[in-house]
């Protein structure tokens, strides 16, 4: 899976609330039908955290949990919204073109 796709999936499932790595992948499996490979998942987490789109969850219990449970940031929500809106536009245009071609 492409790196940007993995980041988009991670942001999407984190938009529902904070999760740790394994739970993120389980949510992605429910959403997309397949789990991300560990390299893709943790690469995406590292990349998103470096871009300040996700961060360790504040309300998690002990220090280790704080480091492992991640939550989406305000910037992450904005980036996700922009990307989903762009995808929706592409989707609308593509479906319309297919409808016209099929008619």
């Amino acid at each position, binding site marked *: 899976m492409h*790196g940007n796709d993995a980041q988009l999936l991670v942001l999407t499932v984190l938009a529902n609330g904070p999760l*740790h*790595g*394994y739970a993120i*992948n389980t949510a992605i499996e429910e959403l997309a039908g397949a*789990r991300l*490979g*560990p*390299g*893709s*998942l*943790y*690469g995406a*987490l*590292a*990349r998103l*955290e*470096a871009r300040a789109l996700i961060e360790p969850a504040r309300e998690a219990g002990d220090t280790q949990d704080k*480091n*492992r449970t991640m939550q989406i940031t305000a910037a992450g929500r904005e980036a996700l919204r922009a990307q989903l809106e762009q995808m929706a536009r592409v989707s609308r245009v593509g479906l319309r073109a297919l409808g016209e071609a099929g008619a």
Partner: protein
Amino acid sequence: MNVPALIVSLYPPGVRQRWGTEMVREVAASGPGSWPDTVIGAVRLWTHPGDWPETASGQTRRVLSAALFAEAAVAALLLRAAGPPRFLVAGPGHPVASAWLLLVLAGAALAAPLPPLRPGALRRLAAVTARTLAAPALALLALYLTARSGLVDHPARPVHFLLLGCYWATLAYVGSRACALVSRIGPIAIMPGAGRLRPALFLIGAGFAIAAGQGLASAVHPTVHAGTLALSCALATLATAAVTAAHDLHAAN
């Protein structure tokens, strides 16, 4: 160490410390089919230091400095194994052929940790250096004395292979301890910031790229030489890793 733990140990320290335990669990649960993705993920992260989470202050700079010297040590071992090849011989008589080495040395000098100016810190630095380099220095001395003793001038075949193994093991050990030294003195010495690391990585990458280019030119002309070709590909890989990391560090800042 089981295979999932071994694969996860390939990741940069910050990533390992943050997510290592659950990564091992995830790799173990996903099975061998996930191993290639996990290894590729490790390679990708090593070439993107801007993505590493920091579990301690200055960790990325320390790890990157040690990685830079590890890359130089790997290149030195490769060149030692290859001969060194005639086309890479450096010296005043071969100014053009020496350009790659000058770039690598300039990069290493730029990335080298600087000694602290406080007497207490200097004493600690000397102690850590002595502790880390004592064993490899003794190993090198033993190797030198064995070679000079005349006892092993014409060894039998099994002894020859044993000595060869000892020789390479000693060189690899010395290289690994030199990299460990860079890592250990991190909290004491003045480590290079991104401003020094970026050009250092670019210089080292450029040096290896030139060496790889010289090697490729020599490997295919007048006849194809597989050993030189393999050495050139290895140097090109090291160059790519250094330049990609430098570029990512630039993008991250």
